[in-house]
């Protein structure tokens, strides 16, 4: 195939991807995002499958048979763990606007600049080899597909200008810049990019499957055929036995671990899974869609490997079987499809990884360094955001250049998978800090820094550095004799660990030092207040629906200052829209102190744009922050607790007090009333006593001074005197009775014969009835009833009620009737006294049983009696455990009823 044609197709494919990206971006802007669904999300995750999968796994399979699958088993088997971890990581990242894995780590450990830098450096060292193998694969596949082109003498890599990989590198750098640095989004979302990635995932799957189907069903006669042929062929028979898969168990173990970790923490993986995630619920679907994809793409790996071994000459590069097989059979179009599939896999890996690395370098490496060496030059930059994009573009070019360099010097001599595993081992170093940080709140920045540094160092001397030796750049004695000639420092057998492959060796030792130092240093050192807060957020993210603000670290900044910050670093337009988005209260006056909410919001926004560490540095000047020690924090917390307790207790006490005060006030009022009542009582009693005494005295004096008084008059006067004496006596006894009733309310134990007492009462009052020309009627059919009240009391009750009735009955034709009835159901005795006089006025009805309340009868000048009668009557009835009530209106007259149950 002509080289020119291949180049054209490659370019065309990139343009298609770019157009898809633009289209996806436009759609997202208009609200109809095609990217925002779980399937695209899962597909974007398959950027995990690069040329390693496409080409490298076949090569691996030719050596270890099914062993290649370890790299895919890791993610598949640990999908539930992945699910749980990723959910937590996504929640945290959304809340804190994390835009890269370096930011994630740095943020967790108190927004540490050092950790951010360290992580970024590790990732650069780790990913550049990975990028280089993509370039390598593109180069080789290009060569392979154009080898039939006799005219292709130009691309012979004889010089820099003739090295196609060089141009591909530049091309990819350009496309990365175009894809990733068009605008500064505080969330670092690139919708268009995701759309393109999803598309290329499909292309790569289709390409590989097509190649596989071709080999299995067209070259051979199906799976059974290929395997049976392989079994009989000495070249391949070993691969089918388990012994070939019996890579050292340690190797299996570590490859599983490495692949699982890398699937989460590779920069490109972190970027598509976390940073570009739009909806956390997609994680659930991705956790089975992704393994499904892996399964599909792996189905034909072994068959292709076997097929290649069986058919192709032994000089054929095993990594390239996927392409060379179709070429061998002259399937030009299929070969082109495969080539594009590989190219696609390489391109997507490069673009996403490099974008992610550029974000990290700009936010976590360069920005903090620039800010730390802060001078007036920062203030001179009107719009740092423009500067930032420019920085990123430079970073992208530099990274690509470095990757190219590594390719030229190293990768060309190594199989793809080996280099890939070296990269994975670098990613592994991040795992303790991340996973530890998610679940162990004691994990602190010093521990993480120590562990990470140690792990990185071990990794470096065990894996990438020896490759330089093997590639001939460094002395080859390093591998055989160890560094500085020391036996214990042999990179592939560090500290004397024998019989493990280089990867396992590196992993074991780097993890021992990494985790060991991480844990020990974290336990031994203390955390700053900053860290504590972040640790709490990370470990307990589920508790936070919004990120709480630590009131303790009171931040002070004026509204104006913060607005200026936003404008300066994000541009006026972006700042305005962000200010509009701010849902909290924004003081209108610029000189006012900004609310904690607003300060927090500004911090968040800047974090999204520049990473947590840089944002913190940016703001540190404009926000005065009181740094307090842990002890002070403890004390403040304790004090606050105490204060809260006291205030609670105080509230309770206040409530109690209020209640008590109210009760006292009520009591006081009652007492005052009682006092008044008492005074009134005494006043009334005195008055009542004085009146008859006045009469008695006056008449007595008259009789004394008047010598010749008419005997009739004398007689009359004497009767009056006697009556008045009775009156006084009666009053006194009533008052005494009242006094007794007031102090002791006892139950009367006595009983008396109803009929006897009633007849007695009637007899006593008959004369008065006659005087008034009133009819006094007694009606009873119950002669043998007994009343649960002592006789004198019951008599008094009857006398009182009857005399009242006589007092108030009609003056012309007065009728007073006493009737006794018995309720047959509940056996209560009812004694009713009726009179046909004026009914009791409504305003008296409530008070009639009270002391000194007397109803005024129209005709009488003054009511007879003291007003105590009914009061005493009621008390007596109650002492007999009875009830007294009345009914009175215009038509029915008045009836008082005493009920004994």
């Amino acid at each position, binding site marked *: 195939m002509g080289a020119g044609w291949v180049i054209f197709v490659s370019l065309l494919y990139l343009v298609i991807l770019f157009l898809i990206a633009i289209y996806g971006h436009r759609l997202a802007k208009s609200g109809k995002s095609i990217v925002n669904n779980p399937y695209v999300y899962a597909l974007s995750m398959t950027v995990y499958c690069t040329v390693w999968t496409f080409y490298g796994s076949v090569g691996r399979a030719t050596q270890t048979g099914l062993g290649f699958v370890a790299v895919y088993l890791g993610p598949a088997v640990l999908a539930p763990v992945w699910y749980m971890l990723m959910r937590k990581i996504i929640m945290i990242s959304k809340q804190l606007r994390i835009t890269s894995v370096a930011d994630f780590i740095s943020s967790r450990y108190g927004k540490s600049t050092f950790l951010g830098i360290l992580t970024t450096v590790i990732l650069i060292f780790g990913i550049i080899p990975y990028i280089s193998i993509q370039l390598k694969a593109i180069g080789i596949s290009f060569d392979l597909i154009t080898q039939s082109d006799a005219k292709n003498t130009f691309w012979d890599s004889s010089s820099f200008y003739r090295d196609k990989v060089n141009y591909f590198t530049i091309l990819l750098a350009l496309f990365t810049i175009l894809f990733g640095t068009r605008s500064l989004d505080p969330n670092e979302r690139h919708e268009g990019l995701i759309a393109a990635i999803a598309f290329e995932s499909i292309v790569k799957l289709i390409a590989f499957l097509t190649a596989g189907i071709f080999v299995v069903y067209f070259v051979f006669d199906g799976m059974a055929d290929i395997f049976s042929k392989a079994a009989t062929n000495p070249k391949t028979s070993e691969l089918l036995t388990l012994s070939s898969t019996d890579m050292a168990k340690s190797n299996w173990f570590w490859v599983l671990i490495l692949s699982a970790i890398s699937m989460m923490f590779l920069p490109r993986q972190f970027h598509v899974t976390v940073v570009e995630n739009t909806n956390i619920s997609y994680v659930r679907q991705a956790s089975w869609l992704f393994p499904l994809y892996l399964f599909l793409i792996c189905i034909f790996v072994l068959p292709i490997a076997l097929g290649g071994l069986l058919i192709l000459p032994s000089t054929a590069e095993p990594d390239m079987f996927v392409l060379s097989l179709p070429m061998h059979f002259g399937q030009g179009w299929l070969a082109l499809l495969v080539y594009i599939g590989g190219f696609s896999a390489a391109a997507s890996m490069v673009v996403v990884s490099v974008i992610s690395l550029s974000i990290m370098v700009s936010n976590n490496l360069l920005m903090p360094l620039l800010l730390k060496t802060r001078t007036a030059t920062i203030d001179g930059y009107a719009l740092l955001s423009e500067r930032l994009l420019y920085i990123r573009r430079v970073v992208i070019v530099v990274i690509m250049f470095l990757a190219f360099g590594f390719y030229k010097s190293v990768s060309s001599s190594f199989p793809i998978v080996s280099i890939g595993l070296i990269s994975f081992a670098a990613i592994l170093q991040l795992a303790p800090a991340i996973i530890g940080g998610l679940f162990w709140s004691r994990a602190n920045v010093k521990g993480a820094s120590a562990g990470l540094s140690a792990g990185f160092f071990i990794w470096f001397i065990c894996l990438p550095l020896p490759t330089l030796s093997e590639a001939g750049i460094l002395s080859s004695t390093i591998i055989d004799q160890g560094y500085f000639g020391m036996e214990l420092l042999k990179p592939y057998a560090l500290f004397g660990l024998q019989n493990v492959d280089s990867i396992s060796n590196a992993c074991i030792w780097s993890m021992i030092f990494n985790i060991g130092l991480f844990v020990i240093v974290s336990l031994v050192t203390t955390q700053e207040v900053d860290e504590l807060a972040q640790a709490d957020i990370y470990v307990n993210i589920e508790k936070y629906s919004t990120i709480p603000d630590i009131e303790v670290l009171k931040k002070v900044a004026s509204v104006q200052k913060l607005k200026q910050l936003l404008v300066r670093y994000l541009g006026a337009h972006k700042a305005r829209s962000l200010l509009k988005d701010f849902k909290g209260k924004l003081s209108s006056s610029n000189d006012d102190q900004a609310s904690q909410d607003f300060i927090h919001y500004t911090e968040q926004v800047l974090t999204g744009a520049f990473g947590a560490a840089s944002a913190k540095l940016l703001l540190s000047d404009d926000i005065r922050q009181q740094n307090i020690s842990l002890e002070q924090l403890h004390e403040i917390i304790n004090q606050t607790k105490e204060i809260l307790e006291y205030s609670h207790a105080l509230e309770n006490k206040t409530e109690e007090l209020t209640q008590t005060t109210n009760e006292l006030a009520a009591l006081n009022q009652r007492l005052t009333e009682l006092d008044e009542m008492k005074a009134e009582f005494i006043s009334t009693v*005195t*008055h009542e006593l004085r*009146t008859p005494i*006045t009469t008695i005295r006056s008449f007595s004096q008259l009789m004394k*001074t*008047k010598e010749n008084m008419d005997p009739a008059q004398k007689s009359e006067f004497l009767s*009056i005197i006697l009556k008045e004496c009775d009156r006084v006596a009666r009053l006194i006894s009533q008052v005494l009775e009242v006094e007794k009733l007031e102090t002791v309310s006892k139950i009367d134990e006595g009983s008396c014969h109803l009929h006897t007492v009633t007849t007695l009462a009637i007899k006593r009052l008959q004369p008065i009835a006659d005087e008034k020309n009133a009819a006094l009627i007694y009606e009873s059919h119950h002669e043998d009833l007994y009343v649960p009240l002592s006789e004198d009391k019951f008599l008094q009750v009857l006398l009182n009620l009857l005399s009242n009735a006589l007092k108030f009955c009609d003056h012309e034709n007065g009728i007073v009737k006493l009737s006794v009835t018995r309720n047959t159901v509940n056996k209560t005795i009812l004694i009713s006294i009726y009179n046909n006089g004026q009914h009791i006025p409504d305003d008296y009805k409530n008070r009639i049983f009270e002391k000194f309340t007397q109803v*005024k009868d129209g005709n009488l000048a*003054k009511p007879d009696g003291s007003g105590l009668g009914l009061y005493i009557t009621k008390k007596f009835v109650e002492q007999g455990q009875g009830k007294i009530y009345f009914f009175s209106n215009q038509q029915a007259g008045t009836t008082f009823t005493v009920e004994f149950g």
Partner: protein
Amino acid sequence: MIKKKILIVDDEPNIVLALRVLLEDQGYDIEYCYDGTSALEKLVTFSPDLVLLDVMMPGVDGYTVAKNIRNHQNAEHTNIIFLTAKGTKDDKMEGYDSGAEYYIVKPFDNDDILEKVRELL
């Protein structure tokens, strides 16, 4: 000599009787009633020279009657003696403020009443 006219106002019938007997024997012309409203009527119809007035009465009380007497055109010259069981200094003051000549506390001495009546009339 014209008989002097005395109006007795008290809600206690026995007291009214006692005073009637006492004063009629001395040759005064007596009218009596048992409440304030009637007193005001009798004031106009009987036009007494002296009023013996109880304070504690239902409806219109003694003080009000006294004030009315004082304000009445034709009754300026009418003398008032209060008779009452209420005996505190405040009550007496109120009594005098209402325009009474004398304030006598019950139980009273018959001679005391006669003396005062004679003095005023």
